[in-house]
């Protein structure tokens, strides 16, 4: 165990672990698909909106 961890209190470690899921809020959200994007499927050249 590193010296840094040894210096932290047990309480601080537990609080850090509890806070971890909240980090996902800072991640980039997946882009909303552009309906005008050109896609190729089964030889067809289509707009993404065609697939709806």
């Amino acid at each position, binding site marked *: 165990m590193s010296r840094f961890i040894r210096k932290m209190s047990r309480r601080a470690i537990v609080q850090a672990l509890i806070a971890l899921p909240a980090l996902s809020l800072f991640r980039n959200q997946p882009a909303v698909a552009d309906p005008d994007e*050109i896609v190729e499927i089964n030889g067809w050249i289509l707009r993404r909106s065609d697939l*709806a």
Partner: protein
Amino acid sequence: MIFDSYQAYKQAGFKPKACILGSGPAGTTIARKLGAAGIPVVVLEAGSREFSDESQDFYRGRTVGDFYFDLDITRLRFMGGSSNHWAGWCRVLDSQDFEPKAWAPDTGWPISRADIEPYLPEVHDILELPDFRPDVPVSDDIRWVQLIKSPAVRFGEKFADELDKSKNIAVVLNTYATELTGDGKRVTGAKLWSNGQDAGTFAADYFVTCTGGLENSRLLLWSNQRSNGGVVPNSAALGRYWMEHPTFQGGNAILANYSEFEVDASNEAFFSPTLAAMERLRIMNFGIRLIESPYPNVKKLIADLACTAPNMAEWMSSQLDQRLHCAAQLYVAWEQAPLASNQIELSKADVDHAGVPRIELHWKKSPLERRTLLEGLKLFGTTMAQKNLGRVRIDDWISNGGDYPTNEETAGHHHMGGTRMGTDVLKSVVDANCKVHGMDNLYVGGSSVFCTSGQCNPTTTITALACRLGEHLGKVIVV
């Protein structure tokens, strides 16, 4: 004047300054220009006024490489040459076709489109063409281009009376040069064959070979071999860089409004890439032809689309209810990359009745062309979808890298290259005036001088180049 044999011609005592070999679009056009300039010219035509199996047999040959047409059906050997089976489709090479392409080796002409433009009014008269409308940009990548279907001028029929009445032009039928003789500076004469037999030798101050995009190479290769390099002293490129317009069905399209493009009388419309798109994708030029689909094909196409895009298919079905013209087959014809390995050689095993080796044509489509086909269709499909003009489906054999089909159009019967124009004697045969490098009195007319093929049918450009060469010779030849 028109003679049916060399013997009859000799008896007339005509004294030509120039001899043109072949009476197709190039040969006839050059002869008319020279005749009009007051220069006496003889045109030797290997065939007669009509098609015959005997004459056609001289065109038999062999192809090595990709599947191609029999060489005796892809061209015609009688008065008027291959204009006799020409479909009449007209368009001049675009300006961009004359420019070198950094991504395609050995492209670029020593002349530009501006060099042939002064002759286009004359070409329009000869081919009975209305004016071309300017290209219409459909997107930054695709142009809607015009390809005029002319009345398909048969040069032999159209100009027979004029040639017969001319005092300056003598057409000798059933007569051709089996070989030219030369001393490395000049053509010194021609060995003739007339009505199935040796007709002796013939001399003129100037010779112009206009025997077609295959036969020009054959004649010069054989002549050069017999004269120990005395006819084409710089022969590294002779017979090489031969090109066609490969043509295949590439897919189908469902169109939002078929009449959007003012299709021609055959319900066809034509599209080509912009130079910027060719440059970005590093592909050759191509032409996409929309041909109206028969009704059962449309239903099949919509059923196929239903598996991928149900809503789109439903919308298309409603379109089909409103109008029958809503789908098209897409045919793609493209520009071949000029390759030295695509070449005409003389057969080592087979000769014609006059003892001249037949053609062995080495022809293979390149990976760059395969990419042009796929990327070209994608480019067109993307433009159609982005502009909501329709949707395109690319055929599976193209998407999956399958073999080229052997039961389709294959190519355009457009024989180009072999005696290409250029400044580098290692990569060309004639100069910008169509004069054979190093020779004082030997010129070449026709599509064998093409450096690149562009995407359009060649006859209009052949005729324009012939007008230009005819005018040049009219100044060079002293009467």
